[in-house]
Each structure stands twice: as C-alpha cells, then as structure tokens.
C-alpha cells in the first residue's frame, strides 16, 4: 500500500554565516543574508523520501515563510518531493512557534497523508516546539527524536535517541515523526531533479485560504521574547597531557558528555 508523506521544512539564514540579531525586534536578521533549507530538515526530507519510495507513495513538502521560502521548497522538490505547499501571508511575519504549528496543521488538513515528518528542531529558532504542537492540533501521536524510522502495516516504528542509547517506540498511522541528524545522509539534489522541480506544483496559500485569518501570526502571539543576552563566552578547552592515562581520560570525558 502506498504511503504518502508530508514533510515540513523551514528556510533559515545560512547557518555557516554568522547570525545577527536585531536588538529592536529581538529577532534574527533575515534580510541581506543567504537563506537555505534548514540542514536539519534535509534529514527530514530524506527520511520522508525513503519511506515514500519504499512504499510507492509521494512526498508533499510544506513550508510557512516569506516569498523566498519557495526556494527551500524547490530544493526539497529537486531532491524528489512530488509537490509543495507554501503558506505565505504578510500577517505571518514574526509568527511564534504555536502560530507556525497552527498554520502547518491547517495547511495539511484535507491533504491525504499517512505520515508527517519534521526536523527535531530548527537550526535558527530551535524551540523544537512546532512538531509537538502540530501533532496535538491534528490529534495525532508524536514519535520524536527518531534516529531510525520504519513504516509498515499501518504503523510507524522509530528508534528514539536517548542519553543512554535508544528506545523503540511505535504508533499507528497517521503520525508525526521528528528526526535527528543521525538518521540518514541526505542526498544531493540531482540535476534531473532540479529540471523536473520546475514543473512541479507549489500551491500558494494565504491565511484566509486556510481559514486562519486573524488566528495566526503577529495578531495571535502567545509568546514574546522579552530580552536578549549574549551567550556566555565558551570556556577554554581542557588539555589532556598523556602520561599513560590519556586515552582513559578522554574516554571518561566523552562519557561525561554522553557522546559515547
């Protein structure tokens, strides 16, 4: 049976360039910078494509963002997505996470899907709140922090990344899944994919079209950024001199950080 997947992607300022915050609006400066598909969401797109390709389904790429966000959608389409949905509305400027989730929920409603895949958190805002809110609004189970995902017989099963290792978690479809960076190695768009993406449909929707006029965006903020503080300067690294125990000390240090 075909499994159709929706993948939610966000366009963000190129994280390889230094980010700037605007002290007045307390927001990330998005003008005059290169904008890219969030690298975390590339893993989501790859995971979605793998599920759909394995089951003969299609991937729909959904994004909320200003006009240029269509570039991020196109990138996902050139990786192999079948169509895009772009919610764009002047009223959506400075949306908070809940607004974003409301918009995404309304945009995918009426769209046939078996699975929604999201990044675990965006690289710029990094609240990690949108996918949970989205699942709640749609009344769907949430499988978060997947470092492995398989879908079969009407259920999704993941390996949820934990500090110690992983848990195996299952939920019936449809479900929302968030993926970690370790889940896969995202493919590069192919040149044929780039050519084909030109002819793929990207539906442009306004707040009115999804029935959320006045119920999302600037007018419906539930949260507010009250203050900005510079991050604490990082402490200097620790130098371990090898007096025969060097390897041990490094292993202990890494274990302490829970990376091994």
């Amino acid at each position: 049976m075909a499994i159709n997947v929706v993948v939610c992607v966000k366009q963000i300022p190129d994280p390889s360039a230094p980010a700037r915050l605007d002290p007045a609006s307390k927001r990330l400066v998005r003008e005059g910078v290169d904008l890219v598909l969030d690298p975390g969401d590339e893993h989501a797109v790859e995971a979605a494509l793998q599920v759909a390709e394995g089951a003969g389904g299609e991937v729909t790429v959904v994004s909320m963002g200003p006009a240029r966000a269509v570039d991020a959608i196109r990138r996902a389409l050139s990786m192999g997505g079948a169509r895009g949905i772009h919610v764009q509305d002047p009223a959506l400027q400075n949306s908070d996470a809940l607004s974003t989730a409301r918009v995404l929920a309304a945009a995918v409603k009426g769209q046939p899907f078996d699975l929604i895949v999201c990044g675990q958190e965006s690289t710029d805002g990094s609240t990690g709140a949108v996918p949970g809110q989205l699942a709640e609004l749609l009344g769907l189970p949430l499988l978060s922090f997947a470092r492995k995902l398989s879908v079969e017989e009407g259920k999704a099963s993941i390996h949820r990344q934990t500090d110690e290792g992983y848990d195996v978690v299952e939920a019936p479809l449809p479900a929302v899944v968030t993926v970690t960076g370790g889940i896969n190695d995202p493919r590069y768009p192919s040149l044929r994919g780039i050519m084909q993406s030109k002819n793929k449909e990207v539906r442009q929707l306004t707040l009115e079209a999804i029935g959320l006029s006045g119920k999302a965006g600037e007018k419906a903020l539930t949260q507010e950024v009250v203050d900005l503080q510079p991050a604490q300067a990082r402490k200097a690294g620790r130098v371990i001199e090898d007096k025969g125990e060097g390897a041990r000390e490094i292993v202990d240090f890494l274990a302490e950080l829970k990376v091994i």
Partner: protein
Amino acid sequence: MAAATDFYCVQDLLTDEERLVQSTVARFVEERFLPIVADHYERGTFPLEIVPELARIGLFGMHLQGYGAAGMSNVAYGVACQELERGDSGLRSFVSVQGSLCMFPIHRYGSEAQKQRWLPAMQSGEAIGCFGLTEPDFGSNPGGMATRARRDGSDWILDGTKRWITNGNLAHIAVVWARTEQGIRGFLVERGTRGFEAREIHHKLSMRASVTSELLLESCRVPADCELPGAQGLKAPLSCLNEARFGIVWGALGAAIACYQSALDYAKARVQFDRPIAGFQLTQLKLANMLTEITKGQLLAFQLGRLKDQGKATAVQISMAKMNNVREALEVARLARSILGANGISLEYPVMRHMANLETVLTYEGTQEVHTLALGEAITGISAFK
C-alpha cells in the same frame, strides 16, 4: 559564499535552476571532495570513490539531451564546472573529459547503437571515457597526427601512440582519433581490446589528482561498428574541444575564486609589523587586482554562456574567453601564493595546488599561444600559426 566574489552580482543573472545547480555542486565539493583532495594530490591519485556520487547528481553529460542526461543549459554546465574546479582542476577535468570529450562526440557523431550502448553507462558512471587526440609529436597541430586506421575486410586496424590522455588508465572506453585514407575519423576502442594498452604517466608536478596516460595502439583491430559514423575530418574532434573549453572558461574562475578567498582570509588573519598584512597597500593592490580579474572573467563567461545557449557562440569567442580566464586565473593564483608567504607553498592550503594545476589548464585544450593566434587570425584574416 556568493557575495564576496560576486562583485557585479552575476548570480542575479542566473535562473533559479542554475543557482540551484551551483549551490548543489558547491556543497558536494565542499563536503565530499575538499576533505580528501590534498591527500590524493600528494599521492598522485584520482578519488574514484566519488564517481558514483558525481553520477547520481547527474554531472556527466549534464548539458546533453536524452539518454538519461539532464539536458541543462550551457550556463548551468558552466557554473557546475566553476564549482568543481573550486575543488580542483583534476575534478573538473574528469567531468569535462567524460561529458564534453567522450559523451558529446558519441551523442553528436555516434550511431544509435553506440549511443544506446555508451551514453546511459557513461551517464551513470559505470563506464569511464577518455579522449585520445594529442600525440608525442603532435600537440598544437593535431591535424598532423601519425596514428593510422586502415581497413582490413570490414574491420579497422589502428596503429599509433596518444600521449597526455586524461583518464587513460581509468577508462573503459577511449575515443581515439586516427587518420584514414578518407581523412581523420573517430573510433571507440574498449579497454581490453587486443593491441590496445594504457600506461600511466608519472612524475607530474601539475594535475596530480588526475590520471594522465599514454595510449599505445599496435595492430589494434576493432570492428566496423566502432567507428563514429558522423565524425568526418578534424573539425569533429575540434568541436569536442570547443565544448570542453567552454567548461574551462568557467572552471578557471573557480580555481581563481578558491585562491582569492584563501588569500583574503589569510591576509586578514596574518599579522606582521603588528598589523594584518591585509592592511598593507601592496597586499591590497594584489587583492584588488585579483577581484577585478575574477569579476571581468565572470562577465565574459556569463555572456559567452548565454550566446552558447542561443546557439550563437563562435569558436573564436570561446578561444578569447579560454585564453583570458585561464591566464588571469593563473595570475590570481600566483598573487595569492605570494600573499600566503611560506604557507603558500604548502598543500595545507589550496593555492599552490591550483597554481600548479593551472599550468596544465593553460596548455591543454589549445595552448595560450594558439588561442591568441586564433584570435589574431580572426581579427586580421591572416593565420600566423599554420
């Protein structure tokens, strides 16, 4: 990435799709190729392990139509070459040889059976090609070639030596140009054919991350259907070179951009006499000249690409751009080398690698001098070289 070396906003002239090609290839090169190139360069090997990925992206024969190719614009091919050569001229050479020098002649001059047999296999990287035109005694003057093909029944017998052949030892299929009684013809010679041998050329100080070989043909018998039926005369191989040179016009810019960026970063960070060397007027003169030449080269490449997309680019227009962009890229590389001081000679930085590579790029696909004289002939109507 863009802004600092896109002084005249040439990026704005690209289509969305061309920009996406550029960012895709740029990322691939950065993530998969740059981390390994220095080691390969030092050892004198080409990283064959990336061939399947180059193929999956669809870079081989990307501007050809049909047979699994992407059918992209010439400008898209150009920006791809630029990003590949930001990695290394050897990487761009690999893609140039495969697409422009091997797939192109099969696509343009081959029989339907030859196209079916080779184009999809080459597109997918399962078959690697090489292009044998140059000989030990005939470089700038390929029309004088000594390699012969004679009929024996319906077969052809090839005799001769080709030299300086990129990918010769990697190739499954060689496009070999030889003189027949009817003039110059092209032949597809498969690896393993009796009487055909490739020998790697060692001791290179340039293009070290690329394989270069000698092809020996001794009473090498190939069936009639190995001849490229549409290739008649020297203009056939020259048409292939035109395609590849167009890629070089952009590729050289890529090498120059890599050198410029490396030099700029270095100049800002390196302190002498208590200030960054970027603050010295002589360094600024170098940087200003480098950026100016890169910018001029970009405009040349872009307009040439659009002319080619309209089917209007002439061979001599391509000559001018190849001549200029490679010459200036080499100058940029040398200036960058000087800015990096002693570090400039190290493989830890990309600059000397690019500089050494560009010495090959200056010579192959028509030397600097020959392109200058081609332009001179076009200007005056008088050939100074033959």
